[in-house]
């Protein structure tokens, strides 16, 4: 992962894609969100979603999964170059999460992240606070997911 100083407002990264199979949708839903339209094809078709739809929390969790994997790839590359590796801190939360279209069984969602704002932490000077808009787009280039996330990112000076 990158240090605060290596990041600039407007930077965009593609973090990877994920295909939501019917099995994966039902498995997540059975555990965390067993609403009928997340568990059964016929119920999904009869719902506003028009098909077996992934839980929104499944979509958010998969976005996190791909963000972490992308960060770990970057960390590996930095380590291979002999550079110090940045370990990101936790997130205090997010705003404006939109499940703008359903993610249906078989859909492949590409996720990307774009840096929106950056500031240094007053209370913790070794950390920067980054805001990024994360997006998910389906195979028809329709936006299905977005949120404005905040995270603590370590500064190189620390």
């Amino acid at each position, binding site marked *: 992962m990158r240090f605060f100083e290596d990041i600039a407002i407007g930077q965009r990264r593609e973090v990877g894609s994920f295909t939501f199979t019917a099995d994966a949708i039902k498995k997540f839903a059975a555990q965390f969100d*067993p*609403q009928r339209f997340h568990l059964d094809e016929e119920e999904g078709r009869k719902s506003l979603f028009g098909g077996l739809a992934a839980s929104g929390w499944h979509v958010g*969790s998969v976005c*996190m999964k791909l963000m972490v994997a992308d960060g770990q790839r970057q960390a590996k590359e930095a380590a291979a170059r002999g550079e110090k590796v940045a370990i990101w801190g*936790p997130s205090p*939360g997010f705003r*404006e999460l939109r499940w703008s279209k359903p993610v249906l069984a078989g859909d492949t969602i590409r996720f990307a992240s774009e840096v929106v704002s950056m500031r240094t932490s007053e209370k913790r000077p070794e950390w920067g606070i980054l805001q990024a808009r994360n997006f998910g787009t389906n195979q028809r280039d329709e936006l299905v997911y977005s*949120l404005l996330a905040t995270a603590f990112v370590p500064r190189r000076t620390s």
Partner: protein
Amino acid sequence: MTLSFEDFPPGRFATFGPRRVTREEVLAFAAEYDPQPMHLDEEAASRSMLKGLSASGWHLCSIMMRMMFDGFIGRTASLGSPGVNELRWLAPLRPGDDLTLDVEVAEARVSKSRPETGIVTFKCSVRNAAGQQLSEWVSPIIVHRRDPMTGQAG
């Protein structure tokens, strides 16, 4: 009976829980969706800002969803949610915590585009057994209005 839009007037709705979160489920969720050292590795976690092993924030969100489902969404004529206005992770969820969920209706209004439905905006808060607030969020859910002919939801 299925709950419909009319069953969610603004104000306090209900409290649900407690729900125990085990170490095994914290590690399993983190391994699949959020394999950062602070969620997986005791030693690395103790050196992190959160000073000890903590669950992924997305795990907490998913557990809160399940608590809402078990509490009332499972018997509500819910059509899904368009999103979350704001969600804050205020304190870490630790393995072994017992979660309690407080649910309030912040706003309830009839949908203009789909007048047979209403939009209920929930404000939810989750705390541990010590009473420490771990997260709060505000999210609208689309709910069927009661059918004036039958009195049933949707």
